């Protein structure tokens, strides 16, 4: 048997081989000198499992909420680092509380609300032509997301991490809450 490729070994580590190839590698692990050590070295250089909690639909696949993003402007000039999100929400949704997230590595990070004081219903925000406006600091972000938490769902920011967002995360993953992700316009970064 000639050299077994690293790619095949990684496919084995992923559990992605078909049964004949899997049996072949298992035999080789018993019979071929040095193969276990190679496998161990590959395992040691494997990417770590990402610590991610939120699962947000990709841009273009909103769930129950649509929105647009545009660069913020001041006196007609683009205001670097800020994005205006226009949420298409109807009157029945105005009691919901918006939660804004930005992409941070492999996960999402809540950037609003961060304190109990910041938990506000949509009706407290500026509204124009049937759309609600959110101004978001996007100086670090390439992608943002908005989740609407209805008033009958708990949103308790006094809880410690990770319980604070656990219920919202589970509801989003189950597809129970309106959510939309948007790419930050390049001019707003």
């Amino acid at each position, binding site marked *: *048997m*000639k*050299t*077994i*490729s*690293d*790619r095949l070994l*990684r*496919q084995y*580590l*992923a*559990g*992605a*081989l*078909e*049964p*004949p190839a*899997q*049996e072949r590698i298992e035999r080789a692990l018993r019979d071929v000198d040095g193969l276990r050590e*190679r496998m161990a070295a*590959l395992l040691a*250089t*494997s*990417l*770590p*499992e*990402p610590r*991610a909690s939120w*699962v*947000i*639909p*990709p841009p*273009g*696949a909103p769930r129950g909420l649509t929105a647009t993003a545009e660069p913020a402007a001041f006196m007609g000039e683009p205001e670097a680092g800020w994005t205006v999100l226009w949420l298409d929400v109807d009157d029945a949704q105005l009691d919901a509380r918006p939660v804004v997230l930005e*992409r941070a*590595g*492999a*996960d*999402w990070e809540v950037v609003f609300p961060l304190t109990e004081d910041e938990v506000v219903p949509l009706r407290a925000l500026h509204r124009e032509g049937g759309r609600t406006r959110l101004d978001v600091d996007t100086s670090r972000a390439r992608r943002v997301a908005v989740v609407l938490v209805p008033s009958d769902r708990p949103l308790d920011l006094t809880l410690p991490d990770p319980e604070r967002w656990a219920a919202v995360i*589970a509801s989003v*993953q*189950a*597809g129970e809450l309106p959510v939309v*992700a948007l790419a930050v316009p390049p001019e707003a970064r």
Partner: protein
Amino acid sequence: MLDAAAAPVPARPGESDAVALSRLSAIGARLAEAREAWARAAYPAQPADERVAAMWRATGRGAQGSFAHQGAWQQLLARPVVAAFRQALSTRPLPPHVRDRALGDLRDTLFYQLVGGQGFAELAAFTLETAPGGPVAPLFDVLSERSRSRAARCVSARGHWPQTLALALPAAGATERALLVQADPRDPEDWIELHCALRLLASWAESPGDDDRDWSIVTQNQGRSRGRLRALAASEPAAALAERVAALPALAERTRAAARRWAWSWAWEALATDFAFDLDRPVVRPCVAEAGVAALEAEELEIVETWLLLVILRGRGDTVRRWAAEGRGDSDGTWGRLLLELPADLREADGGLARVRAALAAGWDARVASVAPVLRRVAGLSEGRALKRAFWDVVGPAWHVAVAHPRAGFPTFVRNARDWVARGSETGGPLPPGGEA
């Protein structure tokens, strides 16, 4: 079914017909062993099986049915799918922010790839392969008459299949052969094995190869044929697929095993497209019966990368770049011999290399980045008596057996690798002035 071929077995140079027959027989035994391995694969029953069967049945009711189990699908599949991506991404020297973005996007996209694109149908096909009698028969059983007709048209017109059919089903033209093969009662897996054997014989006429290369040719052809069959199965109505899958025992483990294999293919697609995660792009490639350049499978890309490595080591990196972009190579024997190093199965039926060129042109940066770490290590080798061994220590794990091992020229390889690295060519960026051959 091999008897049907009944053609004289072309011995490799230096081998008798008897030796060649014996090698063919060994391949047959290995194929039988592979079928047994599929039959031996264990999928332990789990408490979640009934729930997973209900989730599969719901996919038959369309997106609404699937969304009702969104969280459960995410819980069932996120871990195996992310694990497959982690390993696939670990083969490439990607910057940490790119890897993080890719893995994050993957988690976000997973369910939408399943529900929005062809995902659930593709996953169903991979899951059906684990059924008793698999991998081929359960996929074939789910095909409608229309799909069987499409399969017959594909094998009567695409790639090297017409040659296989011509041997077993003498008939005048593609249409007649398509009708005959559709009515043929033989096991489709037997057809695939006959095709693999004939491709192997064809390869012996071109180069001697060895046992590993023989098996690689067989598994490539088998994999490609099964991939096309999977794509056909995935085109069946969602309800029909869902019912078939939901009837399988031990469904939680079967679904996870299938998800890992599906995700492995998806990961290589994602790597080739810079993690665009296009929901409309199928992971399983259908047979395109019409004219056109079909994309390469993941393993075929691996072969092309090995060949690219060989070409650069032979000092023709600039030539291959030009050839990929413009179709112009060098008009000398070295370049001609390098083209002949590409396995016959990457060629079109007319001997052309349109698929290879298209794959290199479309993904030049990715292909070059893939071979760059090996080239850098080769560039760092010391010339001397131990060079050949050191070379294979570095290159061996990345070398696909479908490309013949070079036997000489190792000091030149090191010099060419140094030149390639020194010019920054591994970045895929523009060549320095005078760099074009």
